[in-house]
């Protein structure tokens, strides 16, 4: 009868008879972290938690690398005169090239290696089966291969760094990308491989959510994070192949000159932009929708209150995912596509804004009359709402055709998408990391340093990007190595902000690492959440649960008692909702 009898061969856990013993008082067998210890047991693991954790390490490592390039770019822009590029190159032209490689590398790493896999692959891999009460994702081998594809893609990027860099901007626009002498092909191959990694993850999640929900968990009984990852996975599966074929053709254009994108051979560069944005606009939602899912969890759990408008949030995730496929043309309002197309794309663009607005109001309404625990995680959640509001509202400027004509390709756009991609997606990733950190590692981090770091990141972020809005609307184009003196003050403020933010992130890295070494032991439910991951020990055992959990209402949060000694929330009533 005991389902744990089917533990995989090769693992020492053959039986989990001790499941009914409290995790806090007695050791209930090894956790997924300690069950096996060899290198191979990690490198060849099929366990979603270990894969998620390896993704997390990889993504954070790449975040560091991308951050270094961001700081290089910001430092260089502190002055309109060459500042630090002369340290690396003597010739003024080579200095400008170097700057172009920096911002390209920063953009490509952050988009393809950090933000796109961040929430879905790193956090999602760890949390998704737990939220479903499942032992693993549907295809564990595919999951592992998806991780190794990510590694492979990352390796290509590292190779690009050492082979002279790439200077096309992360968009690889033709004909510049078919013309430049830099390492475009390895970079594009890297992105192509990462695309497969992304497709496999998405495919795995869709099947897992469809087929592995526990009995009793209906679609409208799922935690909203699952709605988020599901919508994201649909986009990943449907949009990424188009990027794949586009990049493949770009490689062929560069090597064989097939004449599809390069006007010199009879191709059409605007067609490339259409294809690129057909993927890359939905990709923005690959970044933001799961982030919204994370925030729905964080706000609800840390307000100890039922999420407001559950169905609205769920539906709006799906609505955003669908709309995201038909708005790509708003990246091309000035490219010379027809007037009629511009008008249609502008109209549809506004339809994406509305579900996003609804979500923001729902989160705020969730906080109303809640019992707000203003810990680090919640502060990240609230910071997200503020930053996402700015990101969304400034998106309205860019959707309005007449204004976009002025603002297109200026720093206003740069600031806007940083508010969405970093201020929202990445802040939600960091917030989710804090939210699930006790579950992942079994350790509590320092709240004191956590709050300070969060405040620094928040202040630094706004200081970096608010000046960019101003200089953008004043006419400062993006991707400029040098600029007119009148923009100097804005750039200087922005650079200072970037360093403040960097200090915040380094602080985060330190206290999180410190918690691994000497953090307090985490209870199974430190925040008072009711989704299934909080019903298993921290860190969870190899097969996630002792026994098979049954689905409960994830947002029924008022039946917990807090134990100040263990820091654990435990259920008052034994009736549950079974």
């Amino acid at each position, binding site marked *: 009868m005991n389902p744990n009898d089917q533990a995989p061969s090769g693992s020492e856990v053959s039986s989990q008879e001790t499941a009914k013993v409290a995790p806090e008082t007695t050791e209930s067998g090894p956790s997924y972290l300690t069950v096996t210890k060899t290198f191979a047991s990690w490198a060849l693991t099929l366990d979603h938690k270990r894969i998620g954790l390896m993704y997390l390490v990889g993504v954070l490592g790449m975040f560091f690398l991308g951050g270094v390039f961001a700081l290089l770019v910001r430092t260089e822009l502190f002055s309109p005169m060459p500042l630090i590029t002369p340290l690396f190159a003597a010739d003024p032209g080579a200095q400008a090239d170097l700057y172009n490689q920096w911002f390209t590398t920063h953009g490509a790493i952050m988009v393809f290696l950090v933000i796109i896999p961040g929430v879905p692959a790193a956090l999602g891999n760890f949390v998704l089966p737990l939220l479903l009460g499942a032992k693993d994702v549907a295809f564990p081998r595919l999951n592992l291969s998806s991780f190794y594809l990510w590694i492979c893609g990352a390796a290509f990027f590292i190779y690009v760094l050492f082979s002279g860099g790439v200077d096309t901007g992360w968009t690889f626009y033709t004909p*510049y990308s078919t013309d430049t002498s830099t390492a475009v092909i390895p970079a594009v191959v890297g992105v192509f491989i990462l695309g497969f990694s992304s497709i496999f993850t998405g495919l795995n999640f869709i099947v897992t959510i469809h087929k592995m929900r526990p009995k009793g968990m209906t679609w409208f009984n799922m935690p909203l994070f699952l709605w988020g990852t599901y919508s994201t996975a649909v986009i990943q599966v449907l949009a990424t192949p188009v990027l794949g074929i586009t990049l493949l053709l770009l490689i062929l254009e560069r090597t064989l000159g097939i004449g599809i994108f390069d006007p010199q051979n009879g191709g059409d560069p605007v067609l490339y932009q259409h294809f690129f944005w057909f993927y890359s606009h939905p990709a923005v939602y690959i970044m933001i929708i799961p982030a919204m899912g994370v925030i729905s969890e964080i706000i609800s759990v840390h307000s100890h209150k039922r999420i407001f408008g559950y169905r609205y949030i769920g539906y709006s995730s799906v609505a955003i995912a669908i709309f995201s496929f038909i708005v790509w043309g708003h990246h091309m309002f000035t490219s010379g596509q027809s007037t009629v197309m511009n008008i249609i794309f502008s109209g549809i663009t506004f339809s994406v804004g509305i579900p996003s607005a609804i979500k923001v109001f729902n989160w705020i309404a969730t906080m109303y009359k809640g019992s707000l625990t203003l810990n680090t995680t919640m502060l990240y959640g609230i910071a997200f709402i503020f930053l996402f509001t700015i990101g969304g509202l400034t998106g309205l400027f860019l959707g309005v055709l007449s204004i976009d004509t002025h603002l297109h390709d200026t720093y206003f756009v740069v600031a806007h998408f940083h508010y969405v991609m970093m201020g929202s997606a990445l802040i939600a990733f960091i917030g989710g990391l804090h939210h699930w950190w006790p579950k992942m590692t079994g350790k509590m981090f320092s709240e004191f340093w956590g709050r300070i770091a969060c405040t620094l990141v928040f202040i630094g972020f706004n200081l970096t990007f608010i000046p960019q809005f101003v200089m953008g609307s004043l006419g400062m184009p993006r991707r400029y190595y040098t600029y007119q003196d009148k923009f100097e003050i804005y750039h200087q403020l922005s650079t200072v902000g970037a360093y403040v933010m960097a200090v915040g992130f380094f602080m985060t890295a330190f206290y999180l690492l410190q918690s691994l070494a000497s953090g307090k032991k985490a209870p199974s439910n430190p925040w008072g959440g009711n989704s299934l991951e909080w019903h298993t020990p921290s860190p969870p055992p190899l097969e996630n649960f002792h026994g098979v959990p049954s689905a409960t209402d994830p947002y029924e949060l008022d039946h917990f008692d807090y134990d100040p000694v263990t820091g654990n929330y435990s259920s008052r009533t034994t009736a549950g909702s079974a």
Partner: protein
Amino acid sequence: MMHFFNPLLSHWATQTGPSFWLPAPVSNFADTVDGDFYFVYWVSIFFLVLITALLVIFMMKFKAPEGQKATSQNDHNLILEVAWTGIPVILSFMMFWYGYKGYVAMATAPSNAMTVTAEASRWLWNFTYPTNGAVVPGASEDFNEIRMGVRDGSLTPEAAAERESKVLEKAGLHVPVNTPVKIKVMATDVLHSLFIPAFRVKKDCVPGRIGELWFEATEPGVYDLLCTEYCGQGHSLMHSKVVVHESQESFEKWLEVAASYDETLPFEQLGEIVWKRKGCVSCHSLDGSNKVGPTWQGAFGSLRQYTENGVAGSTTVDEAYIEESIRYPMKKIADGYPGQMPVVKLTDKEILWVTEFIKSLGK
């Protein structure tokens, strides 16, 4: 343009100097764009303040120690939900509508607009005035030098201004005030984008395509012209100026000067300028490739098969044949090419220079 939709914002729209957010408005579109901008701006500020205030109030009011129960578990409120769906729908439709109206005006140039061609290459601009074929450079290098000079103190602001006006005598995009001007944008190599912040106009220059933008400058002066589509090493240096002349006369006077030749140059170079200015460039290549007409590379002295009134003939390409072909283009039509060459009126001098230019391209 009238701001009937937004009387509250009229003082923003009619301002003349640069504001905190936007550069000085100096074209017919600036009022519309700025009006739209401030409409969205104030809507955004309203919601940002509202949301921030709610967040801060809730954070203070509902802050509670661990373990305390929420006072409500309510998760729906129909009126609120309808309101916060409906209001954004209405507002975003308004935004779309204003943007649409403003954009349609930008997309269609009036038929009486004066046309100028702007051609972008890495990393320079060339402006062509079809009325007399003058090709005027963007002179990005000069402007950057002046900027650097001011920066490192080797140029006083006055000296810089003086040098700039000297450069602008034969460079930059010049337009008369209060006249509709249509700019045809094109690129020779990679993508570029023509951006004049003060006019609120922008259009990508796509190789192989001709784009179009138009405006009517409302204030004489000198304004920035920038490239906003990433084009490589010199992207941030593709900086030129727009000069708005205070009258049609002063513009025409400038154009005459700009169109004149610097006769101290060698004849071949002058011939190349003619080749560009007079549009020979669009049909005759210099690199041996066949366009609508025969290439000029190695043309001089070669044997040319032609058809004259349906009778085949041949001749060596020499001074006389070149002059005849320019003056009477449809007389002898080279075999393999359509007889499409228009009559381009060149002066004797220009014909001489062109001939020397063709000679210099080898036999």
